[in-house]
Every structure is written in C-alpha cells, then in structure tokens.
C-alpha cells in the first residue's frame, strides 16, 4: 500500500513527542512501503479480505444469497459533504488580488490611456472604480491570471490602442464601430474586450457586456452576480450559484416571431443601471404601456430599474429606444465574448417542438442588428464580438467570414486570392452571413518583444517570476510562447514556476 502522507509531512522523530498511535501509524506505513510488489489487485478482486466472498459491484452474480451488508465502523467521523454548488463556485471563483505578491507602482488607467500611442508596451493598473464596474459586468474570467498579482493591471498592446482609438474616433463622429475579434487560443482576445470595456467605462459610455455567448444557449452558463440582486442571506446565493441554472426561462413575445429571456434581460438591465450613470439622463418619450402615469422626472436609471417589476423585454425596448434614438446620450458599447455560440440554432424549442434560431432570441437580435448595421445609435459607439478558441462550436458561416476578412483586411490579399466558399456545402447560414457582412476584423496575435519584456518585468517586480529578465530570457520565453502568444508565455514561465 502506498503511504497516505508524504514523508516530509510526517513529524520529526527526534525532539518531538509522538503518541503511540502515531508511532504505530508510521510503523505501518514504513513496513508496507518497502513491499517490493503490489498486492492491491489481488486484494480488490473479491471484497475486502480473502474470507469475504461477496462479489464486487458490477460483477454478475447468478443465484445464491447475497451477504448481509457490512456494519459501519464506529468512531470514524462522517466525511463532510460539500454543499451543492460549492465545487462549481470554487472552480469559477475570480480572485483579483494576491497579498503575497509584491505591490508594483504603476500608472492608473485614465480616459485616454488605452487610445494613446505612448501607452503601447506599458502596464497600467485598473482604478478602483473601473474595477468595480468591470467586476459587476462579469468582465473577468477565472482562467485569467489575476490571482497572481497584488492589483489587477494590464498590458497595453498594439491591438488595444488600435481598437480603443477607433472607438474614440467613431464616437466623436457619431459613427458606430462593428468589430469582430479573432486570434489564436490564449492570445488575449478576452483581455482586449476587457480593455475596451475599461476604456468605455473610463469615458462614461453606456456599457452592455455579455460575458459568454454560451450564456444564452447552454443552460449551465448563466452567471449573474446575485449580490446585485440584494440576495445576501444564503451563502450559496451570495456565490451566485442559485441563479446559475434556475432562471433561464424563455417566453414567446406576442405578435412577433421572437422569444424573450425575461430573467436574463433583468440581469442585464441591473448591470446597465448599476454600472452606468443613467440618473443624469431623463426619459424623453412616453411609454403608456409601462407607466400609465409617467412622471416627467423619470430618469433612464429609474426606467432600467423598473425591469424587475414590469415586463422586462418591454423595459429593454424602451431603454434601448431612449439610448439609440434620442440625441445627446452617451455612446454605447455592447460586447459579447464567444459570439460563435449565438450564430447557430439554440437549444430552445418552439411550442411546435422546432428548434429556435439564436437570432430569434430577442436579446441576441439586438446584438445582431447592431453588428449588421440595421440599428445605428445616433450618438455612435461600438459593438464588439470576440471569438473563443477554447470553446467554439463549428459554425461554417462564422469560420468562412473570419477567414475571408482576415485575408481581406489583415493580409490584404488581392481579390482573386481571397478564400472561396465550399460550393457543395449546405451548412452556410444566410442569417449569419448577413450579420457578419459589414463587420471589421481585429486579429489578436502574439505580442512583440518589447511588450513581452514589459510584461515579464512586471511579473518579476511582483515577485512571481524569479529570474533575471534580460534579452536572452525574454527571447526564450517569447519563442516558447509560440512567438508571443501571451497565454502560452505565461504557461511556459509564470505558471510553470508556481510553487
């Protein structure tokens, strides 16, 4: 039998008081440790001992009496049970600070930092206010390595500045940016989305973030922070688990082919009202179906908050009308990570048991209308859809659109060399093609060596990377990380040295 504890964990034999039981345990372990062979297979073949003729579970037994169940041993405390949802909550927890890491003094993000050319290659800390807003918008992911550093900070890379400066320019000209973010796995696509969100928050935009496209289609992925809902009584509710699988209800919207996700929309309305300063803006149009006696002092904040008591889809429509059709409002940013999930048939069914296309879910239709250019907010803004390479469904139209746009916009190939559709493939979806036709593409690839050096120096200054950061080390890590794929660089150096 293998020892249950490693030898280093055992107490020192000299100079310490050992109880008889502990000595016995050590003796037992030591004798069994030096067995030159293993008898476990033979012992497990039939029950616990040689005299026990009870066959193992799963072994076919023909006739005969089964032996009585063995009595439970007394004196052994029952194993503590993990409450439902705790394991998942532990797995999905997001830790944004590590008190064991050294603090690093960095510039804090301001409204211009992400769009300025001078910031490329710098590490910027996220301010407390932005941090709270990003957390409420579920912008952080458990797979990102925030839990290794004292304070959330982020590398400003070329792609960040390209995107944020475009957003800024479009907003100044009241135009709307429609952008898809593609790139290799762990290249930092979600991080660029987070930076776009942070930039929008720093510039007082209205922000709607949908952290995962699978959120709508997979019934297991809805993650709404229940703290916002004021539910702090139950520990599990505080962790947000009870809201995870229980509220993805759907309902047909009368007089249309669309379907509403009432509770999801309520969650997003809460997110918008909590994160953006909507109380400065008053409601201009009248909505008699929502408010029979509409107060002239009703603000957008009040409108968004009424989603919990009113029909949430009607409130969403009213808020969206106010935000997109009334001039003088702040620009809008809508982000959706893993957007390939919402470009296919959903798992929902109509009353006739036919699958519902994801674009027929009303909330996703809003995203698609923005992306396709059917809806253009008067004050401008941006809609960003990021692909996810670690969890991506096969959607032929999305694959083709991304390939085509990369060849056209990134590689700038001539017309005749652009990829063609497979002529006999029937899996292309016209609705998806229409949505992606006019979108721009932002390819997130590897970082350059200057940026790599900046991030590695930050790791070293935080005490998380215990090597001298010089040219040789940077080049080595950059090469090991597939020419600067930042997630691979982390895996090759930072996470590799974790104790």
């Amino acid at each position, binding site marked *: 039998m293998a020892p249950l504890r490693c030898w280093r964990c055992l107490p020192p034999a000299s100079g310490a008081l050992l109880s008889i039981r502990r000595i016995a345990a050590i003796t037992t372990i030591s004798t069994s440790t030096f067995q030159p062979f293993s008898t476990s297979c033979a012992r497990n073949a039939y029950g616990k001992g040689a005299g026990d003729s009870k066959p193992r579970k799963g072994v076919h037994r023909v006739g005969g009496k089964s032996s009585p169940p063995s009595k439970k041993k007394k004196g052994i405390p029952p194993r503590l049970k993990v409450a439902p949802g705790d394991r998942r909550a532990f797995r999905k927890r997001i830790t944004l600070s590590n008190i064991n890491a050294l603090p690093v003094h960095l510039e804090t993000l301001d409204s211009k930092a992400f769009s300025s050319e001078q910031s490329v290659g710098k590490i910027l800390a996220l301010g407390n206010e932005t941090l709270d807003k990003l957390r409420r918008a579920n912008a952080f992911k458990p797979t990102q390595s925030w839990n290794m550093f004292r304070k959330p900070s982020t590398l400003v890379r070329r792609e960040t500045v390209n995107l944020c400066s475009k957003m800024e320019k479009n907003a100044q000209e009241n135009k709307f940016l429609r952008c898809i973010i593609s790139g290799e796995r762990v290249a930092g696509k979600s991080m660029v989305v987070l930076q776009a969100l942070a930039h929008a928050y720093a510039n007082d935009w209205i922000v709607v973030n949908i952290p995962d496209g699978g959120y709508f289609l997979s*019934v297991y992925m809805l993650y709404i922070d229940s703290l916002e809902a004021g539910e702090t009584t139950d520990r599990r509710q505080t962790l947000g688990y009870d809201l995870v699988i*229980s509220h993805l*209800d*759907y309902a047909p919207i009368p007089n249309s082919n669309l379907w509403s996700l009432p509770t999801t929309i309520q969650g997003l309305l809460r997110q918008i009202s909590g994160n953006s300063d909507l109380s400065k803006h008053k409601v201009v149009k009248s909505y008699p179906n929502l408010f029979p006696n509409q107060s002239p002092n009703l603000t957008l904040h009040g409108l968004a908050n009424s989603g919990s008591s009113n029909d949430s889809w009607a409130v969403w429509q009213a808020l969206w009308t106010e935000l997109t059709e009334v001039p003088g409002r702040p620009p809008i940013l809508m982000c959706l990570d893993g957007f390939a999930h919402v470009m296919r048939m959903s798992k*929902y*069914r109509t*009353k006739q*048991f036919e699958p519902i296309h994801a674009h027929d879910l009303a909330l996703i239709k809003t995203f698609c209308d923005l992306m396709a250019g059917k809806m253009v907010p008067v004050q401008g803004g941006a809609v960003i859809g990021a692909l996810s390479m670690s969890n991506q469904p096969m959607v032929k139209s999305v694959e083709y659109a991304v390939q085509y746009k990369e060849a056209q916009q990134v590689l700038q190939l001539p017309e005749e060399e652009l990829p063609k559709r497979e002529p006999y493939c029937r899996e292309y979806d016209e609705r998806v093609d229409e949505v992606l036709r006019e979108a721009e593409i932002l390819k997130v690839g590897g970082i350059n060596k200057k940026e790599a050096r900046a991030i590695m120096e930050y790791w070293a200054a935080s005490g998380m990377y215990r090597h001298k950061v010089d040219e040789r080390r940077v080049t080595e890590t950059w090469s090991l990380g597939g020419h600067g794929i930042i997630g691979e660089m982390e895996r090759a150096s930072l996470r590799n040295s974790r104790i």
Partner: protein
Amino acid sequence: MAGETVLNRARKATHSFPAGIWLSRSTVNFNTHTPGVMILGVGFHEHKLVKKALMKFYALGPTTAARMMAKYSIHETQRVGQLPAKIVTSLTGELSTMTLENDAKRVIQDNIARLKDMNSYRGRRHAMHLPVRGQRTRNQTETVRKFNKLFRTR
C-alpha cells in the same frame, strides 16, 4: 413498523389493484411530510427537474417529456418548484388525457394476451418466459425471465 422496507410498503399500499398490476415504485410518494408539487396526484419535491418528474410516469419517455416542456416553454433545467400554478394545472390536464401508468400497462398486457389467444409463436414464447425475437436461450436470459410474461407487471 420497524424494519419495513419501502417496497413492502408500496405492495401494501397498492394491494387493491388488480393482480399483477402495481403502481410503479417511482411514482409513489412515501414522503408524507412534504408533498411538494402535485402533478396528476403525485407529489414531487420542488427541487426535482420537470423533465425527470414527467418521466416518472410509466409510459412517458424523454421524447414526450421534451415535447410537453416545449409546449409550455419550460427550459431543460427548470425545477418543479419554479413552475407557475397555471402550468402545473395545464400539465396535469394534459397528462390526464394520456395513457399512462396502469392504463399503459393494461395495454401492454392486452397486446400480449391477444398474441397468446391467437396462439401465435410470440404469444407462446411470452407465456413460457422465453425470448420472443429469436435470441438464444443458452445464456443470459435473466431479463427475459423478468419481462416476458403473460401478465407483465413492469
């Protein structure tokens, strides 16, 4: 009574049914303290998935359950406790029109009895508790002995 098993209690509780027909063990609610949500006279715990609750009824499988859920826009992870009373009533109304439980078992029994009455090969095989569809009988006929009976109970 001390030492009384759950199955024995089920047998006693259903002794008034015709010979050979019991309520399936799964649909009988023994927990009298918390009846939960009643669907077609059967109490389900409020944490039970609607899909699982529907499939507890004999002769109602995954396809029918999925269709019923789609009809009332119930998503896959919805729990019985989250159903509005109106939908519970509708589900009960719809289930009451279906051939379920003892009715469904009777249909199966009638079918087997018909085969036996016409003295067909399949009927005789049922009566002899032997495989009906040409399987060999040398080994592995335990399931057959359980199920292939003239008065089938399961």
